[in-house]
């Protein structure tokens, strides 16, 4: 237990009665009031997430764009100042090192948000391919990150900042102040709802958390844990490293060709992707029979092993049991009958279009 890493909000979580779990070496809140309650609060009002365990990597220098574009799959050259994009870091063989958010802070400064348990690996990977003489900083310890998610997220955050939030479009950000402390305010998230992810100095996090809770009280704000974060992202069919993507999966299989810009010039993994062939594809599924398909369960078609569930569970918003899975390419279209092995018993399911949930614009 003592070996677990802690975010600056650890005391806050423990004081508020959160149930804590070991999440990839981090002591994190999995739930407060209950996963379903927190999930619904984010869909209908606003929830607060501590995502300070996420990593940040800063790339600086005149050739910052060249390095970012070489190690990532999306085209960072398309980014305007104050814009962010979802992207992938690939190995030379085309599998994922990680999935990341790239923010353009300045022409010579890019800010990457990466997965918690991958941050050291990502940093080493980028540094190892830094043939551009950039400064690459593993900056995780310098940032706490709080996600304010839900339809009342903007109204909650607006009470604490002079930065006008309405003009900040989805996947854009602005550097400003939140309750008197410098903050990077990004209209991004992992829930499928409107909202912001705020990057601040770690020593400001606990105070900011309390102020956000107070600001959101009139909207019914609740703290939310990793449990709800997972059900929310699953309904939105967003990938989770180690589940939908990992070193053995390439972006085309994962339905992420939209973040791979083959025509932008050379990048790590490009040569492998040019030749990539695969007979499997990520798709959604919903359970028909009684039972819940969960992470790692085998998929069968006509009695033979045909794939596996990457993420699965109950969906509070739709009331269905659903998930994502790899199946043969010719079975990936919606409407194909599959069986999911639940404790050695095949349970009927059907492939389904994703996302399962899309917010009304």
């Amino acid at each position: 237990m003592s070996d677990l890493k802690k975010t600056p909000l650890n005391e806050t979580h423990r004081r508020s009665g959160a149930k804590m779990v070991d999440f990839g070496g981090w002591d994190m809140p999995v739930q407060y009031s209950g996963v379903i309650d927190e999930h619904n609060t984010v869909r209908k009002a606003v929830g607060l997430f501590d995502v300070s365990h996420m990593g940040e990597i800063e790339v600086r220098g005149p050739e910052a764009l060249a390095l970012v574009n070489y190690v990532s799959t999306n085209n960072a050259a398309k980014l305007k100042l104050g814009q962010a994009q979802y992207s992938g870091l690939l190995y030379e063989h085309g599998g994922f090192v990680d999935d990341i958010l790239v923010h353009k802070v300045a022409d010579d400064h890019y800010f990457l948000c990466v997965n918690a348990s991958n941050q050291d690996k990502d940093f080493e990977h980028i540094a190892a391919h830094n043939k551009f003489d950039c400064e690459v900083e593993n900056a995780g310890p310098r940032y706490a990150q709080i996600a304010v998610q839900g339809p009342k997220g903007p109204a909650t955050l607006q009470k604490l900042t002079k930065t006008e939030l309405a003009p900040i479009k989805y996947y854009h950000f602005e550097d400003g102040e939140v309750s008197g402390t410098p903050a990077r305010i990004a209209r991004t998230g992992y829930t499928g709802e409107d909202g912001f992810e705020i990057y601040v100095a770690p020593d400001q996090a606990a105070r900011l958390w309390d102020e956000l809770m107070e600001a959101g009280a009139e909207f019914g704000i609740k703290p939310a844990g990793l449990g709800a974060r997972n059900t929310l992202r699953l309904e939105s069919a967003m990938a989770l490293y180690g589940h939908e993507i990992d070193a053995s999966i390439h972006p085309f299989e994962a339905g992420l060709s939209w973040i791979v810009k083959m025509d932008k010039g050379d990048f790590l993994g490009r040569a492998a992707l040019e030749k990539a062939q695969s007979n499997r594809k990520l798709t959604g599924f919903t359970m028909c029979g009684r039972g819940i398909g969960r992470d790692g369960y085998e998929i069968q078609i006509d009695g033979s092993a045909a794939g596996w569930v990457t993420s699965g569970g109950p969906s509070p918003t739709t009331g269905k049991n659903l998930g994502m899975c790899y199946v043969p390419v010719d079975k990936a279209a919606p409407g194909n009958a599959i069986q999911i092995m639940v404790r050695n018993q095949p349970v009927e399911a059907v492939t389904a279009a994703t996302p399962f949930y899309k917010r009304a614009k």
Partner: protein
Amino acid sequence: MYPEKLLYTKDHEWVSVDGEIGTIGISKYAEQSLGDIVYVDVPKVGASVEAGKTLGSVESVKAVSDIYSPITGEVTAVNETLATAPEKINEDPYELGWLAKIKMSAPDELKGLMNAAAYAKYLEGQ
């Protein structure tokens, strides 16, 4: 939290004994550890179950948890309401949230279970 009239296992099941019938459920501790329960899998009436072996499973949003039968015998009834309302286990783990009734074939097994005081003490070490 832990009714006096029940017997408990280290795996957090409880048994309520009425003659030769033992009613089984999961404790408040188990229910709270699991969180929102969304699915319950119990054997059919007439099935044989063995003490210490898997009786079924309870699933929360996050996880699957096996239930081990505290007693050996034959299933005489299962709580049908849990098929459509598994949250009853969260709401009332000792009454509405019971899982199955078992006709005991080895009542001596009950001696190996904990009473409420012993279970409460056991939980302190968890």
